[in-house]
């Protein structure tokens, strides 16, 4: 029996709807942290990252696995549960890995002036995720918000590309937060 066949959604329609709502919430309110549950993905994938993959990825969303996440258990699990084609960073619509493994960021699609939506969404696995650290300002934030980003400069450079640029989810255990390309980031 192959473990890759286990750990998917039990009630896909309801669970993916809840997860999608949570993903939209954190993306539209940068700095907000929510919990995701319902998937039991193989290590080293976090529950939150597994739920995001089940919710956002299918056969039409090429996925790039970076570093330690590009391993047989993760590949097999994704193949069965999402069907997303696994591709190089340049061809990715979604990319998954820790911050180090996702470098250099220049390899990811940032969209086209006519189609800014053709940009990559990065799912960054984090050792910790807290509402403190870098200062966030911009759409979806009343005044300021804080998020423990892995760095600041990369997101400032990404904001400068707006309306182009990549978008990020950050996951740690069951927690998820996000940073869209529209957010201004400053160091504390």
């Amino acid at each position, binding site marked *: *029996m*192959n473990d*890759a*066949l*286990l750990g*998917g*959604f*039990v*009630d*896909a329609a309801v669970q993916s709807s809840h997860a999608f709502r949570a993903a939209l919430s954190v993306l539209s309110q940068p700095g907000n942290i929510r919990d995701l549950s319902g998937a039991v993905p193989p290590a080293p994938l976090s529950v939150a990252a597994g739920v995001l993959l089940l919710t956002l990825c299918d056969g039409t969303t090429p996925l790039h*696995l970076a570093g330690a996440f*590009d391993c*047989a258990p993760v*590949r*097999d699990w994704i*193949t*069965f*549960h999402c069907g997303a*084609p*696994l*591709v*190089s960073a340049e061809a990715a619509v979604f990319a998954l890995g820790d911050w180090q493994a996702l470098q250099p960021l220049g390899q990811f699609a940032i969209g086209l002036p006519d189609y800014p939506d053709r940009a990559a969404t990065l799912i960054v696995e984090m050792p910790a995720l807290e509402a403190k650290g870098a200062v966030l300002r911009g759409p979806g934030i009343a005044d300021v918000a804080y998020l423990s980003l892995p760095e600041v400069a990369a997101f400032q450079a990404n904001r400068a590309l707006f309306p182009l640029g990549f978008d990020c989810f950050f996951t740690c255990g069951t927690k998820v937060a996000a940073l869209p390309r529209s957010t201004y980031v400053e160091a504390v």
Partner: protein
Amino acid sequence: MTQTPLEAATPCSETLAARKAWMGLLARAKPARLADLCPEIPTHDLLRAPEIGAVMVRGRIGGNGLPFNLGEMTVTRCALRLGSGAVGHAHVQGRDKGHAVRAAVVDALMQTDQAEALRAAVLAPLQAEEIARRTSRAAKAAATKVEFFTLVRGEDQ
């Protein structure tokens, strides 16, 4: 970074051909007929709950050239595991979840020692009925085949 199949050992080509044959037969079966032949569904764990979706059907330009998208068809898929540990997969035409579950159950059982009994009870009747249906269509088509008579024309005499 290639995707590897989850079936641990690559089965020999004969086993593979046999499995492809029964999976195709089950996919093409009429849901009601499969339910008649296979009324009991053994207890199982769903690995992928029956899901209705669409598959984009492709054709080839000129019949043999580059692929193009012809349109979608409805397909229901399911994956499950029986108590014995046998895993069954199904992708079946249409929107009948019971059809997909039964096809996956039969796929799983066909990999166990119940295979021969199941072949006689389910697969053989399905196959016989499919052959009868196809033969009947082909026989009607054959009756509409044109037999040309060549007329002797005046100038040839």
